């Protein structure tokens, strides 16, 4: 459904939602923007940064989350899932698209994560399309785009004085039920804006044949070169909207079983109880990060596991750029023998 929202009525609408929902939107925190719940007198921070520093996956998979409480004497209780109704407003299409990939991890047929699922069901996701390409993003290269609908209940297109609202689900319809229908003219203009935005986004690297190249070059010396300056920190993966790895730890003193974000870039991630580490250095770990996104996800769900948000590029402390790394990988020779 195509609806129309006057910009000067946006805050009114957000406040109306606050009656029924906890409403999250990008707001300033220190020097960056962050999805925070709206309070009275809120100020949206869309002009400060294109994307929030931490991807909104954190609203579904918190950095740390207690799963269960236990006592030393055998008793335990599960911690109930969070079901507060929420709206996430102003999510970028790359981040929303990433959420659909994480659904394939946390909502599998046989294994469903109750906390993830409960939060997903209780949340309405409203996207804000990107009119201007961001410098480090590459959404159109990897099958996403500045107005991609995946993972969204509604998306907004800026038409100047007004915002065109497209809804894609009952959740989205309910949220915007008060708005008037958009005219055909407004809908056509939105399509033009969306098309123009897509065309402005440059293609960052060739994806055709990339998976095969990476598979063939598993044992290539290229990975040593690619990882040479890598610090081995968790910035790229923690700020990645599709990275989901976690570690489960028993905080025995508090009696809590906790799930914490973890990353394949850490030595301890793949360290086995015997002391053996199948990914002993940054070389193997760098290969894992890129291969997971660009070959293993493709094997599993037939999609590249990256939506091109560009956070890993923007915030890498040593300036490593996954786009450049993949461009080089694509030029590697074919048919290198496996190790």
């Amino acid at each position, binding site marked *: 459904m195509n609806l129309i929202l006057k910009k000067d009525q946006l805050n009114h609408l957000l406040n109306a939602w606050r009656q029924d929902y906890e409403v999250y939107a990008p707001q300033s925190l220190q020097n960056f923007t962050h999805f925070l719940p709206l309070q009275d007198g809120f100020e949206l921070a869309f002009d400060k*940064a294109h994307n929030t520093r931490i991807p909104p996956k954190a609203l579904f998979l918190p950095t*740390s989350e207690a799963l269960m409480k236990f006592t030393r004497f055998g008793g335990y209780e599960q911690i109930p899932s969070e079901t507060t109704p929420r709206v996430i407003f102003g999510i970028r299409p790359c981040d929303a698209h990433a959420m659909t990939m994480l659904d394939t991890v946390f909502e599998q047929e046989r294994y469903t994560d109750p906390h993830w699922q409960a939060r997903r069901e209780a949340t309405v996701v409203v996207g804000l399309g990107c009119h201007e390409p961001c*410098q480090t993003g590459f959404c159109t290269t990897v099958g996403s785009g500045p107005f991609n609908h995946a993972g969204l209940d509604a998306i907004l297109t800026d038409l100047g004085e007004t915002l065109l609202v497209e809804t894609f689900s009952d959740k989205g319809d309910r949220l915007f039920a008060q708005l008037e229908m958009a005219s055909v003219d407004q809908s056509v203009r939105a399509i033009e804006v969306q098309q123009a935005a897509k065309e402005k986004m440059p293609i960052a690297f060739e994806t055709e044949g990339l998976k095969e190249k990476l598979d063939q070059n598993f044992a290539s010396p290229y990975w040593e070169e690619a990882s040479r300056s890598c*610090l081995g*920190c968790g910035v790229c993966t*923690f700020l990645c909207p599709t990275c989901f790895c976690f570690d489960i*730890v028993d905080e025995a003193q508090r009696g809590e079983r906790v799930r914490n974000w973890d990353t394949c870039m850490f030595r301890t991630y793949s360290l086995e109880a015997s002391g053996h580490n199948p990914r002993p250095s940054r070389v193997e770990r760098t290969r894992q990060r890129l291969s997971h996104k660009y070959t293993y996800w493709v094997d599993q769900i037939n999609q590249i596991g990256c939506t091109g948000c560009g956070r890993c*590029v*923007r915030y890498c402390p*040593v300036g490593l750029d996954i786009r450049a790394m993949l461009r080089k990988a694509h030029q590697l020779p074919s048919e290198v023998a496996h190790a």
Partner: protein
Amino acid sequence: MPDLDALKAEAKRILIEGVVDIVIGFKAGDTPLHPQPAFFKTIDEVDQLAFDGLCQNNLATYLTRFPKTQKIGMLVRGCENRSVNALVFEGQHPREGLYLIGVPCEGIIDWRKIVAQTGEEVISVTEQSDNTILVEAKSGFFTLEKKTLLHESCARCIHPNPISADVVIGELLPEGDPALARAIVASFAELPLQERHAWFRQEAERCIRCYACREACPMCYCEECFVDHISPRWTESGTTPAGMQGWHIVRAFHQTGRCTSCGACERACPMDIKMTYLTEKLNDDMRRKYNFEVGLDATTPPPFSTVTLDDKSRFVV
């Protein structure tokens, strides 16, 4: 601005003459705000060498990755030179296996301070000869005073000159004012206890435990960091207040008498967490109580690295 041609010529010379096997420096980045650390093994590769105020890493952090037998050349600014000295003292590489190309440092530009003024969509950055930098951003062109963009650790740097390099390229710069380094310590230490605690918590509890600060630090080279230790566990590994505070306190304490105030930890942090105020406090204590500054040479032991049989604290011996 260092003379890039002279740097390249020296890097090539030491490779050709076999003085070193590899030169660690910087090359232009794939994005305008982030030059990358680079490792040059041939003279052709040295042509990529780049060096400007945006080179934000402390290259000494790579030193401990190489075998001690490898002959390494490294571009060093004041802080990097002192980090190398501290690492040499700690037995991490023999000094004779190193060739340090010194560059007096005008300070590292904090890219965050650029984007605060220009917006984050930066297209190019050019350092100009009049101590300004020209930034082309999507929002327009900006001419910014370099001085206003320096990372705070650099704005209060005491020793900008490489102190024991094998060669220095560029004019030596005047030493910094130690009072500036003390000011940051005082601004924190003089706060009432409650406020000081609130400040610490506000900074520490933004942490996402990515350990970029640790990995960027030349002195954090432990094969197993205390936070990764499983039995016993020294601290919670999650983002609970206890876990985050535990990390930031112990990380700082492990730097006592070892931190060179380079600020690489802060520059690497994806959450813009202030942390040098803690290590500056420890450095200030080292200066005032023990008359010791880290890395001024490679032979004076840091006060907390010395033990004598007549130590007043009997539990030590």
